[in-house]
C-alpha cells in the first residue's frame, strides 16, 4: 500500500513539484524540446511533400538525412571548401532524385501504395550500403564552424538560475522555421506547388491536363533532399554525424501520425508536440523508468493520440461508404 502511494506520488506529484521548484530547468527542457520539435517537423515535411506529390510513403527520408550529413562532412574532409561541399551535396541529391524517378518510380507508376512504400525501404538499403561503402561508417563531427554557423551560447538569467540557448540551436530553429514557411508558400502559391497538389489527387487526371509527372517527382525528391540536408546539418551538430541519425529521422513518423500525411501545418504542430512531449517526459518521468525513454516515447504519444483522434490533428472524420 505504502509503496503504491509512493509510486503514485512519484508519477503524479513530484515531477510537477520539480517543475515549479526549478523553473529554469523546465524552461531549458521546453527550449530543447522546441528545437528538436522544429527539426522533427522539418523531416516530417519532407515526407509530406513526397506523399502529397506522388502518394509514396517515403521510408528513405531518414536515411537521406544521414546521407546528406555524411556526404557533406566527407566532401569537406577531401579538402573541398565547406560551401562548395554544400553545393556538391545538392547536385548529388538532384542526380539521386533523377535516378530514383527514372529507375524506380517510373516503373512503379499506378502501383499500390504499399508496393511503392516497400520500394523505398529497398532504396533505404541501397543508400545505406553505398553510403557506408563510399564514406565509411565512423561517426564524425559536423563542420558547423566552417559553414559559418555561430557557436557558443546565450545565457538568460531566470528564476535564480539560467537558461542556455546554444547559438547553433537558435540558428536551427530560425532556419527550420524559414524553410517551413518557404515550403508552405511553395506549396500553396507557386505553379509547381499547384501542379504537385493536382498530381497527388489523381495521377491520370494530372497527366491529361499536361502536368509532367516525371518532372514533378524529380523536383519533390530534390526538395526532400534539401530538407534532409538542413536537418542533417543541424542534427549532426547536436549529436554526431553517423548512421544513428536514421533513428532520429524515424521520429518524423509519429509526427506524421499526429499531423496527418498530407498536412503542412500538421507536420509542424505534430513535430512540436512530439519534441516537447518527449523532452518533458524524459526529464521528469524518464528517471522512473531508467533513461533512454526518448527512443520510444514519441511513438507512445502518437499512439495515445490515435486512440482519441484516429484521423489525426487536421484530418476530417472519414465517413466510410460501401
Amino acid at each position, binding site marked *: 500500500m505504502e509503496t503504491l502511494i509512493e509510486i503514485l506520488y512519484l508519477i503524479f506529484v513530484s515531477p510537477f513539484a520539480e517543475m515549479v521548484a526549478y523553473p529554469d530547468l523546465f524552461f531549458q527542457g521546453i527550449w530543447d524540446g522546441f528545437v528538436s520539435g522544429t527539426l522533427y517537423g522539418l523531416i516530417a515535411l519532407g515526407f509530406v511533400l513526397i506523399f502529397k506529390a506522388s502518394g509514396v510513403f517515403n521510408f528513405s527520408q531518414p536515411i537521406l538525412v544521414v546521407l546528406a550529413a555524411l556526404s557533406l562532412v566527407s566532401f569537406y574532409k577531401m579538402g573541398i571548401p565547406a560551401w562548395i561541399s554544400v553545393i556538391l551535396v545538392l547536385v548529388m541529391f538532384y542526380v539521386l532524385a533523377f535516378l530514383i524517378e527514372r529507375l524506380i518510380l517510373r516503373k512503379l507508376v499506378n502501383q499500390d*501504395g504499399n508496393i511503392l512504400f*516497400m*520500394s523505398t525501404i*529497398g532504396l533505404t538499403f541501397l543508400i545505406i550500403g553505398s553510403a557506408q561503402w563510399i564514406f565509411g561508417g565512423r561517426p564524425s563531427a559536423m563542420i558547423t564552424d566552417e559553414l559559418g554557423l555561430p557557436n557558443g551560447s546565450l545565457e538568460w538569467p531566470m528564476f535564480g538560475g539560467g537558461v542556455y540557448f546554444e547559438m547553433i540551436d537558435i540558428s536551427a530553429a530560425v532556419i527550420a522555421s524559414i524553410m517551413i514557411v518557404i515550403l508552405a508558400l511553395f506549396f500553396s502559391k507557386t505553379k509547381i506547388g499547384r501542379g504537385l497538389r493536382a498530381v497527388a489527387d489523381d495521377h491520370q487526371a494530372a497527366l491529361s491536363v499536361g502536368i509532367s509527372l516525371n518532372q514533378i517527382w524529380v523536383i519533390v525528391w530534390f526538395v526532400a533532399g534539401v530538407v534532409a540536408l538542413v536537418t542533417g546539418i543541424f542534427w549532426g551538430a547536436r549529436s554526431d554525424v553517423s548512421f544513428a541519425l536514421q533513428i532520429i529521422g524515424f521520429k518524423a513518423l509519429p509526427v506524421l501520425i499526429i499531423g496527418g500525411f498530407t498536412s503542412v501545418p500538421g507536420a509542424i504542430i505534430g513535430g512540436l508536440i512530439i519534441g516537447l512531449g518527449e523532452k518533458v517526459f524524459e526529464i521528469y518521468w524518464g528517471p522512473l523508468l531508467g533513461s533512454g525513454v526518448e527512443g520510444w516515447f514519441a511513438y507512445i504519444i502518437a499512439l495515445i493520440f490515435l*486512440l482519441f483522434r484516429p484521423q489525426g490533428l487536421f484530418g476530417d472524420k472519414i465517413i466510410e461508404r460501401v
Partner: protein
Amino acid sequence: MFYRETGQFKSKYKEELAAFPLFEDKIGVGILLLLAYVAIPIFGIPGLSYEFTLSAIMIPVVIFTITTLGLNILLGFAGQISLGTGAFMGVGAYSCYKFMTIFPDLNILICVILSGLVTAFVGMLFGLPSLRIKGFYLMVATLAAQFFLEWAFIRIPWLYNYNNSGGIEGPNKEMFGIIISGPQSDATTRYLVCLTFLVLLTWLASNVIRGRIGRSWMMIRDMDIAAELIGVRPLTAKLSAFAFSSFYVGISGALMVFFWLGAAEVESFDINHSFTYLFMVIIGGLGSITGCYMGAILVWVIPVLIKEIGKTSFGYDAFVMENLSIILLGFMIVVILIVEPHGLARLWQIAKQKLRMWPFPY
C-alpha cells in the same frame, strides 16, 4: 509432360481440399523432405564445407523461414503490416531464456514453445491499435513496439538475469541423453530440431490458412468493411492473426538464440533485422507459404555466399562485402517489386501453370 492434372479426378471434396491435390506435388514434397532430413545432414552441400553448410546456411535458413512464415501470416494473409518482427523475435528469445533459467529442469523444446506463447500474447497486445487504425498508421504503431521492446531488452536487467554482459546465453541442454542446445551441442542435431519445428509449423500454418480462420484473415485483408458485414468480427480476426503470427516469430527468435547463435544481445533484434524479414516476405511472395521458403533462402543465402566467395576467392575485406550485400538486398527488393510485386512464389506459380500446359502455350 511430367506435370499434369489430367486424369487425376477427385471424387470427394476431401481429396480436393488436401494440401497437395496433385500427385506430382506430393512426390516433389517427399523428395524435398528426404533431401532436408537425410541427404543434407549426411552429405552437406557439395562444394561447401559441412560445418559451413549447417551453421551458416541451413540452420539460419530454417529459422528465418519460420520467422517469414509468421510475418507472412500477418502481412500476406491478414494484411496487417508490422515492422516489429525483430523485436518480437527478441521477446521469444528473452522469454525462452527466462524459462530456461527459472525452470532449469524444463525440457528446452517446451521452453521454446512456451516462449512462442508469450510472444503471441505480447504480439496481441501490440496488435490492439490495429482495431482503430490501418495501413501506414498501423506500421508506425508497430515501430513503437520495435523501439519500446529494444529499450526494454536493455533497461530491464531482470530479462537477462542482471549479468554484466547485458546479453543472454544458453547453457547445454539435453534431451534423451543427447545435447541438443548450448555450446557443446552438435550442429547436425540443432539443425534437425529446427527443421522439425519448421515442418510442423508449416503444416499447421497451411491448415489454418485454408480453413475458417484463415479465410477470416484474408477477408479482412481484401476488404475489411465487407468482411465485417458478412459476420467477421474484426477484433477476433485481427488479434488472432497477430497472436498466431507472433507465435511463429517468437519460436524463431528462441531457436535463433539457443539453436544457432548460442548467445545474443539486443543488436540481434534491431530494426534492420525487422526490415530483412520484411524483405524475405516480399521477395518470396505475400500470401504464399512456398514463398516464405524461397524468400528466406534467397535473402539469406545470396549475401552469405557472396561474402564467403569474396573473402576466400578475392580476399575482399569484410567491410566491403558487408556493404555489398546490403546494396544487393536493396537491389533485389526493388527489382522484384518492379518485375513481379507478388514475389517469387507468383513467378513459380506461373512457371508451373506453363508446365501444366506444356507443350501448348495456352
